[in-house]
């Protein structure tokens, strides 16, 4: 049998409002249905229970909002990028919006393998009282040459010692309680935004209650430089 043809697209979407409480797997299932409702000629796998050929870039934790989520989708026919965007958006009214659609070259790597860094806005909830010098102390802390920390291991408990500074690419205050950061998002070296803020609060001797932050992902980046770090959004 001949491989049937397909055209790949990368989709960028935002996720805001109540739908932030929907987990990654459920968002994937949500999109499968959106795509079916939109009638786009999505490509399916072969076999008894064919599934749509979709691949998501980087799971977003439950409770986070985002303006920069991505997935790749294969269609059996070429469809205009704006039309894809409009048709998907026509079938969604739940707080997810398609921001951008881009056709990919045939040989393009999938979005998951490209993920290198992600940026976030972290807001410290009002239930934590911050001193007048919070901003200043935080900037001092982050501007050190090195920031040695013990990061919880991904699996099996325990910690690894790393230099946070090496994985922190950018930071700035948005307002008194909200810090913008851009950190590594590699599969092994991923830095959780909550970990960064916990480290900052910890360095100032503060107690951290349950659910201390509101976190918003701004974007996800690939590294387009071979020997340095040069970040560019996935599309």
């Amino acid at each position, binding site marked *: 049998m001949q491989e049937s043809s397909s055209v790949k697209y990368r989709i960028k979407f935002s996720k805001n409002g109540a739908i932030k409480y929907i987990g990654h797997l*459920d968002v994937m299932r949500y999109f499968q249905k959106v795509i079916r409702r939109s009638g786009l000629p999505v490509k399916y796998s072969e076999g008894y229970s064919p599934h749509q050929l979709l691949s998501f870039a980087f799971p977003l934790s439950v409770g986070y909002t985002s303006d920069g989520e991505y997935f790749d989708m294969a269609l059996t026919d070429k469809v205009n990028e704006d039309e894809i965007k409009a048709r998907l958006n026509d079938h969604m009214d739940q707080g997810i919006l398609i921001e951008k659609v881009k056709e990919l070259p045939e040989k393009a790597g999938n979005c998951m393998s490209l993920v290198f860094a992600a940026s976030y806005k972290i807001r410290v909830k009002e239930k934590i009282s911050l001193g007048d010098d919070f901003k200043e102390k935080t900037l001092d802390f982050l501007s050190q040459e090195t920031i040695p920390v013990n990061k919880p291991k991904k699996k099996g408990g325990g910690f690894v010692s790393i230099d946070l500074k090496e994985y922190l690419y950018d930071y700035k205050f948005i307002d008194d309680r909200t810090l913008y950061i851009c950190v590594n998002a590699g599969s092994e070296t991923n830095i959780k935004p909550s970990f960064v803020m916990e480290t900052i609060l910890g360095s100032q001797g503060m107690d951290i209650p349950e659910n201390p932050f509101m976190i918003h992902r701004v974007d996800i980046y690939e590294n387009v430089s071979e020997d340095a770090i040069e970040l560019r959004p996935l599309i």
Partner: protein
Amino acid sequence: MNNNLALSDDILMTVEKPARYIGNEVNAVYKDKNKVDIRFVMCFPDVYEIGMSHLGIQILYDMFNKFEDTWCERVYSPWTDLDAIMRKDKLPLFALESQDPIKNFDFLGITLQYEMCYTNILQILDLSGIPLLSKDRTWDDPVVFGGGPCSYNPEPVADFFDIFYIGEGETRYREFLDMYKEARKEGISRQEFLIRSAKIPGMYVPSMFEISYNEDGTVSSIDTKYPDIPPKIRKELVTDLDNTYYPTAPVVPYLKSFSDRINLEIQRGCIRGCRFCQAGVLYRPVREKSVDHLFKTAIESLNNTGYDEITLSSLSSSDYSHLDELIEKLMVYCGENMVNISLPSLRIDAFSLDIMSKIQDIKKSSLTFAPEAGSQRMRDIINKNLTVQNILNGCEQAFIGGWNKVKLYFMLGLPFETDEDIEAIAELANEIAALYYETIPKEKRMGRVQIVVSTSFFVPKPFTPFQWAPQDDKEAFIEKAYKTRKAITSVLNQKSIKYNWHETDTSVLEGVFARGDRRLSKVILKAYEKGCLYDAWSETYKHDLWVESFKECGIPMEFYTTRQRSDDEIFPWDMIDCGVTKEFLLREWKKAKEGVPSPNCKEKCNGCGATSFGVGICRNHLQ
């Protein structure tokens, strides 16, 4: 869409699966609350994923929201984690769509699908801040409605409800809501309103009835308290299923529910007349939908939801007259559109095997038979029209077709059961295994045949011929399960057979409530106060607390379960008329005793009484 959530971010981030509480699902209905007259909230008193799998609520949700003056929303039981937080922080229970407190609604409708949800009803009322007892409510509280199969004997929960709707919901709500609007305009009392409600067909208002008891605890009489209250409430039913409400844009949950697909109801009712089966009586007579209507509904629903699977639902799909035509049409459409079809409750024969081989992976799927009893004698008693030969023929064809997994469902504790009947379960499983090894030569076998035998304990239900039958006690149940296991381990092919059996404690309690009376309301209330909740879940079921509650109320469970009932006993549910007469049920009970089966509604009319509705299959027998 509504981003104004009732629960704080802190709470939503603490509880398991916050998606249960935020609404906003695809096809959820949002209206402007200032532009509607009636706020209705439908409740399935169990956790979200279970409630969202239920078709009945989706039908009524669709119907109510088609009424321009009504906004119908949904609520499900908060799981135990949120329950604890809401009690601690004194947060009121809210509806998913508007996130408004339930207390502010005009109506709270609770569907009663199984007896083990009764304490969850109290949880809903309690967390909403609605008085638990109907008699304590005022116009400041919603009118609390009950419906669903358990409302045919609603007596154990009678004190908690203002009104029960008896029968299929599609028919009387419009008239009822108009009456409600009128009543509120006139400014009549809640009591006066309930009296008016009781006069609308299908509405059972328990507070309008006085129950008296004999010294032995049985009911001596059922009387109405006011003049003009109809003494019998007759079931409501839809006469033309092609021309009524049916959702073509059901709400699609984000969370994986237990039914993650389109549910296409192809008919209502069942021709079979199994004597243990309550649904088979309650939904009489059988009414089929037309192929055109079903096909159209299927396509619209798939388009509106994006589901990639559709299931045909009915009590016995094989009895649907146009099944082959419907499936053929669906298979073409679904094949082109990457939709899976699933067909539960199909009889296993050449036709169904052929279809199954086309729509599913044989290696992964298993054949399901529900002989319900092991011996022919017992199957004649329960009127299950399925012979060993039927089963073996089906299996043989299936084995040749490549299947090698068989699931068998039985009941233990059926009336007049003997040890031989129990042993026959093992023999039947053994025979099926032997048949596999005879039919399939060694070199073609994919390992052993896998037979799974499951037994559940029989619970007699109201409105069945077995409503007179004594139920086994817990010890008898356990002994029978052990006997089954022993019999299975002593047959030749025991290595190919796996045996499962279900809980006993909950079967006893289910039996108490199934044929219970009003006096049980106080036991349920007590058990709830002691902390019983989610009794349908084995992990949260607290049997000791139930036993304590019965004891403290001075009510013996055995009165409701193991007691022998006389032919002329007045049952607590005798004010409800489901269309099938008590005389017919008694006739069937006597035939069961003699081991005589009855023909099904297609073969011959047994004169069950449902012909008085003048619809469905009964019309085929009118001269």
